[in-house]
């Protein structure tokens, strides 16, 4: 019995991974943030963050906003509309599951 078999099929496994869950949660409560902010808040390393960010971006959950500030490149991350919806649904499902556990 693998961990994947235990998780109900309707739970978004992409978000369910602990590091990605932390990233999604931190991005959900703000409009946008950069890598440094996410590193500080989540405690993840740069490499870890980068790899999880790619997966979330592939899934269309986050968007990478590149711009210039004082002539320096600036990269911000934000949840897309799909990302916010997916996170909200995940949260509701998890809360529902946890609430249904008998005492």
């Amino acid at each position, binding site marked *: 019995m693998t961990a994947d078999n235990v998780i109900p099929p309707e739970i978004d496994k992409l978000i369910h991974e602990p590091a990605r869950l932390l990233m999604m949660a931190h991005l*959900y*409560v*703000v*409009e946008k943030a*950069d890598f440094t902010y996410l590193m500080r808040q989540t405690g993840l390393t740069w490499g870890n963050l*980068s790899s999880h960010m790619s997966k979330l971006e592939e899934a269309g959950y986050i968007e990478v906003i590149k711009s210039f500030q004082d002539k320096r490149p600036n990269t911000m991350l934000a949840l897309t509309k799909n990302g916010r919806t997916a996170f909200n649904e995940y949260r509701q499902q*998890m809360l529902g599951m946890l609430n249904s556990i008998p005492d």
Partner: protein
Amino acid sequence: MNAPFNLKELEQKAFRSFYQDGIWDIFFGLMMLAMYAFTFFNDNFENKALRILALVFIEIAAMFFLIYAKKLITTPRLGQVVFGEKRRKNLLNIFLTNLASVIVLAAWFAYKTAHPSALDNDTLISISLGVWITFITSVMAYFLDFNRLYIYALIYGATFTAVLLLGLPILFLAAALLILIPGGVIFFRFLSTTKPIREE
């Protein structure tokens, strides 16, 4: 595991983490120092323009410190973030609170000028001013979600009352140091424990 589900707490913790740099503490300490500078130059120099220059100079220096320390010291260490609309609305509320305060004080001043003998109780005026300053600063603390500012609000209010009642402007300096010293400790601790993050 609870953190990602208690979103309000998560956001609040993240927002409040930006006060761990001590920069706002130093700013409020400098504003109090500006008051001391005003009274010092007023009492010790005949040229009254100097007191205005001292006040404005220190206040402008405090603003520059706040803006540039946040940009050059805090942002490389804690990152950049745009918090939600509710936090931005709070900034507007702070502006409106300060505007209302200025209007009330101006109205009081105008009334007192027109009726010099009215509200002539120095003790009452001193205490009222102290309470008003504490109240306005506490409202700012609420909207800034900056808990240490509630303590500074009490220090500000008590200092203004004490200076007016006792006639001891040195109390402004004492209050400034009471805020600047812990603020400085927080700032230097932040510099030593939170290093800038370099992009890999």
